């Protein structure tokens, strides 16, 4: 009989009831937020803190990763040529060499330095000993060919292939590329990825957990209220939906706060010319791009949602 009553009632005013409910959910959520401003403010601060730590980590990670990548990608190869007394002969050999090297896949640009420009090249690239080099007779230096590679092609195997090919060419005295560094950096990038992922997971779980505690803090205050609501006939969704709204609003607001805070800090950082300083070390500092921000935003919303989910589960 009660079921018959319910379905009847359900059909009569289903739509207006749904609207009333929806209206109510938001009303209750905002009422809850207002009625426990202090508690909600704490929750908000804790969540902001957690997202802030997460954002800072992402920012650092992305910059370290970029830096590492720039190491790997900026690889150039120096080819020192045999010094031939015969100028004409020399020219032919060099032209041959350049042609051969150009044929290699992934070579972006080739530059030939005669012994004169070779000295200028050395002076430019090793400022520390430039005064010494200035005293050197250019003719003592060998000509150099410098190869730039297409970053997409670069890998350890590719580089060592090119190395052996070039070495076997006529007129080449010595080929230099920083193989050791490349190896080490490859290894480091791998671990940066793995550890970055681990830390990110850790931060994600922590941020769910922090949302959880923050919302739990609010729910604990309302434990008796929820008990009474249930006794008076409130459904689960009536009790939980406003909480989810609260949780997600909290997460979004905290996220916005922390991203603004991070952006301001970043601007201060730039303002004090650290960027200039770091670019001295060839470190370029970039802010998070829209996609990264969006991903973290989704994570924030998700952690607000999951936090509410877990903290409100036990009551039902």
């Amino acid at each position, binding site marked *: *009989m*009660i*079921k018959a*009553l*319910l379905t009847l009632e359900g059909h009569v005013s289903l739509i*207006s*009831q*749904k609207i*009333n*409910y929806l209206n*109510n959910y938001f009303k209750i959520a905002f009422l809850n937020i207002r*009625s426990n401003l202090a508690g909600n403010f704490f929750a908000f601060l804790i969540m902001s803190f957690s997202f802030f730590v997460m954002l800072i980590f992402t920012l650092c990670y992305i910059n370290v990763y970029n830096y590492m990548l720039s190491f790997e990608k900026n690889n150039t190869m120096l080819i020192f040529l045999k010094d031939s007394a015969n100028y004409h002969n020399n020219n032919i050999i060099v032209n041959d060499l350049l042609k051969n090297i150009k044929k290699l896949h992934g070579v972006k640009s080739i530059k030939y330095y005669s012994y004169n420009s070779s000295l200028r090249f050395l002076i430019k690239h090793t400022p520390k000993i430039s005064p010494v080099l200035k005293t050197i007779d250019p003719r003592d230096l060998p000509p150099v060919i410098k190869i730039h590679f297409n970053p997409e092609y670069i890998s350890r195997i590719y580089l060592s292939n090119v190395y052996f090919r070039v070495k076997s060419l006529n007129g080449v005295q010595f080929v230099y590329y920083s193989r050791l560094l490349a190896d080490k950096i490859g290894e480091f990038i791998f671990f940066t990825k793995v550890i970055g992922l681990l830390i990110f997971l850790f931060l994600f779980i922590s941020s769910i957990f922090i949302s959880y505690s923050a919302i739990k803090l609010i729910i604990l205050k309302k434990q*008796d*209220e929820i*008990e*009474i*609501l*249930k*006794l*008076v*006939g*409130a*459904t*689960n969704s*009536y009790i939980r939906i406003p909480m989810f709204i609260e949780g997600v609003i909290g997460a979004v607001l905290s996220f916005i706060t922390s991203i603004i805070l991070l952006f301001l800090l970043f601007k201060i950082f730039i303002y004090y010319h650290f960027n200039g300083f770091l670019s001295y070390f060839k470190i370029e500092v970039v802010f998070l791009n829209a996609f990264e921000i969006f991903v973290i935003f989704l994570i924030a919303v998700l952690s607000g949602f999951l936090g509410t989910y877990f903290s409100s589960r036990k009551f039902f």
Partner: protein
Amino acid sequence: MIEFVHVYKSYDKNYILRDLTFNIYKGEFVFITGPSGAGKTTTLKLLTAIEKPTHGVVNVFSIGISDIKPKDIPFLRRKIGFVFQDFKLLPNRTIFQNISLSLEISGISSTVIANNVTNILKAVELYTKKDDYPLSLSGGEQQRVAIARALVLNPPVLMADEPTGNLDDNTAGIVIDILKSFNNKGTTVIVATHDKSLIDLGRARVIDITKN
């Protein structure tokens, strides 16, 4: 409408209700009585699925309480107004908000809510206190708020647990009159009490759970 058939209820193997059988019919006014600790509150809790019987059958609106689905419980409770012995008012909502709660959870529009709540507050003579919070009311006033909350949804069944425990005889008389008037309009009323004078005042069928 309400059936208890050979109902037993125990907490930790300690039987409170033994072989309790009775019927309450639509539109009746009934007193449930017994000394302190006899199981009056427990009997009312069985009716709203706050507790389940250990043995036996409890039927409310032809629904068996033993096998009711959790998601149906809220809808059952909306059909039964319950005045709790300890009132169970929300301390951080005003009297008005406390009473409108029962209507809000059913998704009723706010104009209807305002109207109904005002009427019921006038009936229990608490309209002047509508914006106060429960903790600033006296024990007797809180009891009347609890009664108002149970009645505002105009439920087919009203259960009141010791509804006059904190009321002086005058106010108790007013409350009984309210319950009677709802009963006259067709509401089934069940009152649990130990108070002999209240039973005398009500002049209705008495179910003594200790004599079953």
